[in-house]
């Protein structure tokens, strides 16, 4: 699904440049659930941005679902982002003046789906993340966990092949983090590849494969021995089920 070969990227800093990705080779297959860890500044977000076609790279080759991603026009990039990718951000990035349903429906707007139809679809995805009763609420009226679940529903609505989540639980407390992970796990079971950047070990142990990034290189890339089911942990924690 995602094929990275010898990816290099540097940022211009002052007169010189900062070499951030120093030859990344990475293959992520369909239906995988992968976490990326690494110290701050190791290049995790940069890697995610390259994979998300939000940023370009200097060297190497990137195939996304067999499409070569290189020097794309903005239009084409927009198309791939819309059809193949779903994004979940640390700070949710919901549009403040739209309600939950409209936020979720937005990717379909860019596909030209008529308003009524896309709002209908948005409701089914809100149901999936357990927020159908909050459809008419603005983001500011939702808790952090709820906002992130709305964001996940939004990432899902275009039925992408890959979901890229950069520290999706970074702004959430432990219990809510597990709930969000439970939702992501369910999605993954339905066949969507998921890549999660995190610096929390318990989160990374809820994925099937763990990649360590150090100073722009992949230091290790191993399967997680026995992935934790976030639902079981969430259920064990008292009062979690209702805290939605």
């Amino acid at each position: 699904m995602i094929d990275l070969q010898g990816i290099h990227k540097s940022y211009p800093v002052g007169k010189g440049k900062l070499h951030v990705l120093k030859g990344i080779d990475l293959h992520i297959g369909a239906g995988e659930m992968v976490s990326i860890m690494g110290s701050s500044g190791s290049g995790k977000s940069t890697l995610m941005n390259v994979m998300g076609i939000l940023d370009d790279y200097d060297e190497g080759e990137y195939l996304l679902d067999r499409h070569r991603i290189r020097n794309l026009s903005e239009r084409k990039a927009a198309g791939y982002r819309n059809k193949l990718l779903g994004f979940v951000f640390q700070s949710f990035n919901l549009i403040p003046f739209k309600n939950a349903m409209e936020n979720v429906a937005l990717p379909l707007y860019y596909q030209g789906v008529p308003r009524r139809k896309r709002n209908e679809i948005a409701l089914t995805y809100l149901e999936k993340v357990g927020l159908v009763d909050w459809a008419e609420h603005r983001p500011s009226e939702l808790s952090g966990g709820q906002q992130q679940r709305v964001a996940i529903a939004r990432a899902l609505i275009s039925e992408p092949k890959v979901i890229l989540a950069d520290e999706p639980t970074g702004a959430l407390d432990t219990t809510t983090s597990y709930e969000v992970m439970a939702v992501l796990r369910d999605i993954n079971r339905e066949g969507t590849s998921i890549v999660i950047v995190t610096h929390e070990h318990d989160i990374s142990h809820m994925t099937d494969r763990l990649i360590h990034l150090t100073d722009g290189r992949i230091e290790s890339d191993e399967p997680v021995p026995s992935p934790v089911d976030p639902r079981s942990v969430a259920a064990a924690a008292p009062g979690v089920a209702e805290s939605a």
Partner: protein
Amino acid sequence: MFDLDKWQEILDTIRANKLRTLLTGFSVAWGIFMLIILLGSGNGLANGIEYQFRDDAVNSIWVFGGQTSLPHRGLAPGRQIRFKAGDFAAVRDGVDGVEHITARYYPQGSLTVSYGSEYGTYDIRSVHPDHQYLEKTIVKNGRFLNEVDQEQFRKVAAIGQKVEQGLFKGRSSIGEYININGIPFKVVGTFEDAGSESENEKIYLPISTSERIFAGDKRYRNIMFTVGDAGLVESQGIAQDTRAVLAQRMRFSEDDERAVFVRNNVEEFQRFVSLMAGIRVFIWVIGIGTILAGVVGVSNIMMIVVQERTREIGVRKALGATPWSIVSLVLQESIFITAIAGYFGLVLGVFLLELVSENLPASDFFVNPNVNLQLAIVATVLLVTAGAIAGFFPARKAAGIRPVEALRDE
């Protein structure tokens, strides 16, 4: 083309920024309002000037006798120049380009006019039949003076409608006889005049009859004629020819500016026309300047809006928004705000002009300030263009936003 969703998007963002939108709109509305008021006032001024010229034919030349100021062929300066019938005929027959021509002769002393027991003093002008073209006299009943009256020295009169009202008290005057200094004149017609009220208080008599009856000084006050559709230069030539013909006949120097006075109304009118054109250009310059200021205001505010919405635009791009969808969002919002606000200013300006127009005390210099449909259309086109210009730079900035920059967590 009509994308309901896009409008929904625009209304959403406008609703989210009510105050800012209001302030933006105000600057544009003000610009258009000012433009409309200025243009309307300009039209009022133009109408006023046109009104001034409505009294008389604008394609006319008036010649008045004066006093010689230069010695000429042994004649000392200081001679009075007064036209007589022969001079009139010389101009009529000797100057090319003369269309309708008349002289004016005023009998001396004040003449009383009466009908039955009704008396009045009215201005009595003795003229040639063509006079009606010079004054734009509009015959209401009967007819104006004609050549037969002139040739047969008929004692007939054409009277203004005010005269008829004054002497006949609502009855018809046609065929009745009025007395002028005791001499009966038959009323052959009544008229109204587009000019000022006093033009309706005149009595016209055939100049031949008048000369014979009121005797005394047989000199004319002035000679006046129209020049058809002669242009400015042509009319100036005709004026010059007239001067030459008279100079030859009456023996004064052609260079003697004071011997006869020639008023070329074509020239006068032309002067006002170019004055008006100047005023109009001035108004447009100011008006466009005001609108431009509004446009810059909108542009600035949209720029800030785009700046503030950087993250949102980044999110949209991450979700699959094409650059064009972002550009058109900003452009459309800009055009929408300017169009609505501008239209508001337009309507308000037109409304105010109407109000002024209706309540304005009668003035000859400022008449019926208004804007026409054509102008409203021009203003509307101007508005949409202005909106597009105002939105252009912000839209380009928005399209250039890179999602990575927008989405970076601080």
